[in-house]
């Protein structure tokens, strides 16, 4: 991708939007899982070990966002 002069701002904006969107998506997904997990742990505290990785699963989304943002920025 070739960025013409004066359009760098658009690329930076695109990178920002990517992180924003994926960040919100992750937060929303973790909110849902987190609430359910706390319920499960309240019932059975020994589930903690199993629940913890489940809660961080959606974090992958924001990682994707981060990678895309950096590959966008590296084109500047």
């Amino acid at each position, binding site marked *: 991708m070739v960025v013409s002069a004066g359009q760098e701002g658009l690329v930076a904006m695109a990178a920002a939007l990517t992180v924003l969107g994926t960040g919100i998506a992750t937060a929303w997904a973790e909110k849902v899982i987190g609430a359910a997990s706390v319920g499960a742990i309240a019932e059975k505290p020994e589930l903690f070990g199993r629940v913890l990785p489940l809660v961080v699963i959606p974090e*992958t989304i924001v990682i*994707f966002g981060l990678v895309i943002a950096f590959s966008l920025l590296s084109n500047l």
Partner: protein
Amino acid sequence: MLRPVPMTRALIVGPRDELEATIERLYDLKLLHIVDHKEGEEGLEIGKPLLKASEASEILVKLRSLASVLQLEDAEPAAETGLTGDLRQKILSLELNISEEDTSKKKIQSLLADLDRKIEEMTPFAELPLALQDYRGYERLEVFVGKAPRDIDDLDTVTTEYDAFAAPGLLAVFVVKAAASAMREFLAQRGFTNLPIPAGEGRPGDLLADLRAEKVRWEARSKEIEERLTTLRERYAGFLVAAKAHLEIQVEKAEAPLRFAVTEHTFLVDGWVPTAVFPEMKERLERESHLLASELESAAGHAEPAAEPPVELQNPRPFRPFEMLIHMFGTPSYHELDPTLVFSLAFPVMFGIMVGDLGYGAVWVVYGLWLLRRWKDKPWGFWKNLTVAFVWGGLWASVFGAFVFGEAFGIPFHAPDIVGISRAEAFNWSDDILHVSIPLFPFLEKLHQVTDFIVLSLAIAYLHLSVGFAFGVVNEARHNPKHAIGKVGWLLILTGLFIAIMDRAGRWHGTLGYAIWNGLLGWVPRTGLVQASFGFSTANPIPYLALAMLGVGVVLMLATEGFLHIMEVFGLLANVVSYARLAGIGVAEETVIFALNSLILTSFLFPWIDSGNVVGLVLGLVFVGLANFLLFVLSTISGAIQSVRLNYVEFFLKFYKGSGTRFRPFGLRTKAEV
């Protein structure tokens, strides 16, 4: 290391009059994982519990209730010497004592609750100038007493035949019955809520004082009882805890026959013993008592024994604490590879990359070793195991911090080689703090080589996941060669993807991708398919080799696992990219500490350096300490959670089932059981 301790299935047969002695002996040996016999299986009944079982469990129930009254969960057991004599008599007399106190305590508590309610009811009436009997017993009048959120003064608009008494927030209205319903409606519209009129006669103020005095009296009584219970607790806690443990053992032993098979004159115990100690156990049982111990089957010899043996993991001592994190996900079954070894390398390395700082790593090593020294005599619980994991992680963080990222406490060893950076950005250990040039130069600067950092993460992803698929091949090869071929297919897909990604990442000279593509992957033939729109130009086409691997892999996988699994290829790609979190978290933490450090440097420490402002020095050091503590905690938490997650989700799901049962020999007591 990769396999659990080999197990042998043992059958112990003896005459019934030896039953009790055998239980004692097995309990002392602590070697046999008993397989419960099921009623009627092979025409054999289960045994009856020993006679002392019912008595022991009865006392145990009493003991448990005493323990809960005295709140004994965390008391230390006393020395066993207190357990001589008639345990039953001692406990029964104690119970009499304690339960009497407990009953009166509960009685007083309910009395106090009752008093509280009465006081609450009476309090508003004490504000009004009337005695309680004045509120009732009228033929022609209706009485409204209640809370009024604001002053209600236009009662005249309803009727003139009324009398009213008011106090702040309260109102009592006496009205003729004829106008009662109109008055009720009028009051309700103004937010008036009725209060119940307390029973009794006399002035509410006096009654209230009486109630309060009574409450004080009972509270004193309750305190007295509480004190007596505390004395009892202090005196008997050790004895009770020790007695509880003792009785629990008695009950477990006495109820053991329920797990055995019996005939009229003999009993049979079926269970698993580590193969290495079986001959010793057999010899001892047969010599010391007239028993027959024989080997039913050896799980090591057969590919698929009839029953699933319990699993006792065996790993080198330094890695054993990681077994806890494996059991947390699921105990491996007897027939799959034990992933502890890979886990105990992968977890600390990933933790180390994410923390990636000589300072924080060294703090963990020192602090962790100090904690372990302090906990030398403590049993291996969750926190102790976790601390070992963090010491390993800290070690790797120091290694990565020193040799790869070249920084400590967020400050680089050398100023980054970039023109026109600010003074805070250029602040470094060699020139500004130590005034000695540290002979370690960063291989990768977190803040300035993010793409390289991501490439490094992807390379680790490939290593980690390919080990996972290799484990999968071995696990499946034993009982389903078809699935093993499927795993080979996945390994090919992964390699094909990795080659293509590295090809793309290695386009520019001087990057880490370039180094990997022309170094480690230099053997890959360069001819291939040009896909300019995806960034694969004539200079770096997608190698045919990668495409062939992808193609063959997909065909193998689809043929063995089914057509729908085509979607999983994208899942695998997502798994690979997911490792970019190593870079993501590393960079994020570095950014935060860099920002905090720059702020503190420019506002406090540079003024001190330039003009000797001592206030700046003191405040600066305080804030530097706080900022680094924050980052230390943050990086530990996110580093640990994220690397556990990469192992549990990305790695384990490639091969690991974790459906085994743990080896729990008869006689071995764990804390959780108590």
